[in-house]
């Protein structure tokens, strides 16, 4: 348990070098060490998806990942998707569709949706629901999240940028 490691992790395009304990979770690294508290922790055992981040372009559970595993990696979090005064496309779609209530699952949802949109056709509502099934939301009943994603899929077809 002893011994600290120096790691460099790029988060939302900015490189951070820190000395960390080997058992430090990536979620705690982001929240405690970097103060990026947009990423939330809901279960710490890989089921709820609240802690989802992008690691080198793939979505991953930051509660099941050690910070030291991310040495040299590129990590993407909710803070990288847009600012309060300048929301990104996904964030706006969620707002327009009322796809969040308490907002606690939202960081993980947005990152998962980023990943899904980048990789999958999401041709049917069932595909979208399947894609979202690794992220629990207790407030919305998923209805409006699905509608927001449908909208984003349509927008992607129209403008595949």
């Amino acid at each position: 348990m002893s011994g600290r490691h120096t790691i460099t992790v790029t988060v939302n395009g900015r490189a951070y070098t820190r000395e960390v304990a080997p058992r430090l979770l990536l979620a705690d690294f982001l929240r405690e060490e970097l103060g990026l508290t947009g990423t939330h922790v809901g279960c710490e055992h890989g089921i709820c998806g609240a802690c989802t981040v992008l690691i080198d372009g793939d979505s991953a559970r930051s509660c099941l990942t050690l910070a030291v595993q991310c040495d040299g990696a590129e990590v993407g979090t909710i803070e990288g998707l847009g600012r309060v005064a300048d929301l990104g496309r996904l964030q706006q779609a969620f707002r327009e569709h009322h796809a969040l209530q308490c907002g606690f699952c939202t960081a993980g949802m947005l990152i998962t949706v980023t990943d899904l949109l980048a990789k999958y056709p999401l041709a049917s509502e069932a595909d979208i629901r399947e894609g979202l099934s690794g992220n629990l939301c207790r407030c919305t009943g998923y209805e409006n999240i699905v509608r927001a994603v449908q909208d984003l899929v349509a927008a992607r077809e129209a403008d595949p940028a």
Partner: protein
Amino acid sequence: MSETQRPKSVGARVQRLEDPRLLAGRGRFTDDHRAPDTLHLAFRRSEEAHARILAIDTATAAAMPGVVAVFTAADLAGEIRPVRAESRMRDYYATEFVALATNKVRYVGEAIAVVAAESRYLAEDAAAEIEVDFESLPPLGDTDAALAEGAALLHEEAASNVIARREFARGEVEEAFFAAPHRVGGRFRMHRKTPAAIENRAYRAEFDPGRGHLTVHSATQVPGLIRDALAEILDLPGSRLRVVAGDVGGGFGGKASLYPEEVVVAALARRLEATVKWTGDRLEDLTTTSQAFDEVVEAELAFDGAGRLLGLTAEVVGDVGAYSIYPWTASLEPVQVISFLPGPYRLPAYRGAVRAVATNKPPMGPYRGVGRPVSVFVMERLIDMAASKLGLDPVEMRRRNLVAADEFPYRAGSGLMWDRSGFHECLEAAVAEIDYAGRRAAQSAGPGADGRLIGIGVASYAELTGIGSRISAAPGMPINTGTETATIQLDSTGAVRAAFGIASHGQGLETTLAQVIADELGVAPDAVEIVQGDSAAVPHGTGTYASRSTVLAGGAAILSARGLRERIVQVAALLFEAAADDVEITDGIVAVAGTDRRMSFRELAKAFYSEMGRLPREVRDELALEVTRVYDPFFGTTTSATHIAVVAVDPETCEVEVLDYAVAEDCGRVINPAIVDGQVHGGVAQGIGAALFEEVRHDADGQCLTGSFVDYVVPSAAEIPAISVTHVESVLPATEGGFRGMGEGGTIGATGAIANAVTDALRPLDIDIMELPVTPERLFRLIQNAKINAKTKERDET
């Protein structure tokens, strides 16, 4: 003018004002705050369900790296004054609120000792090293064990494990049953459920030793109630004690009670003169947050050949766990089950009795719907059983029995009074929305190509929302939950700020209240700053629970905003030297009608507060631009709905898929349709969870078998169907603004709709769903038994 001015914002799908911060990762949840010297707590919890504590050894833990202090109940004896969840109810025993267990533990997970350390990792390391010597006592794993002859007593001073009893009776029940040509009934079982908000419970307290001020940041729904409780427990005046609920990640009732960790965090911040924090993990949530719905209901319904209801009886046993939860009491849910069992129906005779039984499980507390998901499950099953016995369609059965428009106000069998609400209108709207006739026709064509059986389930219900001061939200609770205060001001910069005692935790109240005020005042919603979730905002507040906030805070918002508007108009009239009647306010601009004389709120505020000589000096006092009003609806109002679910049951895999779901509800005037729909969607999803997936299981020794999200199944997007919501505005209720509460209804209706739909699907197998959740395992057993029964019957007949 303008009292009659058409509202612009109320009724519109205004985008939520709280969203940008939440979407950008800039919310402020309790665990988000970072301060360098924070001490982190970890609790040593009991692994025994029922045991005497013989000794606690904290020496090893105290010597571990980063540990600042370790405390047991004995160490905190002087700091934590005892409280109990009092009630004026007869036949009720109030157990003591226990922060850290003293001589006995009563459920697995109960906190025994606490470590304060420099990090959570180190605190948890040390907590694991605290040794506790137990003498095991016989575990009361369920109500049967607790009610058995000679059972051990959970609370010796109570002299019984039954800690509350209540009975409601109306009409001649025996006679009704004696004379009734038909009866249906049976033993219904609903299993334990937990709220499982995605944000776990969390508390952080800061102490300012110089001023003796304690600020508790709490992931709570009820900062006002917690402030009042802590003032008593810590013996502090409210002026030096503030409870703040920042952004809260869902509650559903699970964050509406006082918790041991909350008290310990507050007490230790003061004791250690430091910032102290505890954030629970999911295991702690699943084993220590209040749970619900753990009831057995033996019920019987009498009716005549035309399907008219004649009488209803019910015996309810509620498993309320180890303690009577503060402040709601252990009677809250079980009593609500019998209060609401008669439902929205015309029912001449009723008797409902309930016993709340203490067991070695975590305390039962409020959970979305509070008892009513159980009542609705039972009553709606009974209605369908009766319909089936008479060969009537379930919808027709309801048409014949729902209280009709001309019968309101209607007193239900339990004494509840229903004011006019769209009982029939909701039924018809849901029937139309789901194309009920079409579905039935399709269903009669037989199972689909995949062999799945299709079922359609209907559930109608009524609930009381926005309850005023006439009754407390919990039976006999000596705390007023029926008023709400709003203070609204125009400050010297011209900004509008309105403060409330409610505490939004996902409901979007910052938006809906701003909409209400915007219309009254003549400004845009985003020009109104809503202050809530802070006990310092108003002198008395409780929080957000029991579908109260829109009705109560909405009413207070209207009254206070109207008062402020009047003063602004009068000030403007003086400044313009015009008649008050000619002053109008639009988009934050005050003007004299038909002239070009106009000024902004900012200019008006400057003239009022800062520009000496513009107004007679007494005006600053007489027309002070701050208004406080208290709203008390006194009675509540009736929210009603009908839910219709369509399910497919696979008799091979025993899986139930919800194909379609329609809700038609009457929540009075809708402030923001997007938000109302969202509340219904979320409520239905939790009700589907309760009906099909979610179950807190304990073994006979009281060990929790569902301590993670692997074992406690929260439905995901793949299990929840598209949900359609239809708003029915029958007649607006007498509440200020015409609002009815609607935060819980989604959950209330879903248990009955799903249970009826699954039963309907299984009609070919002659199976009645009497137990929820109907998991694949339960369904498998039901189908096996049905097959055996069918065979026996066949054999007997041949």
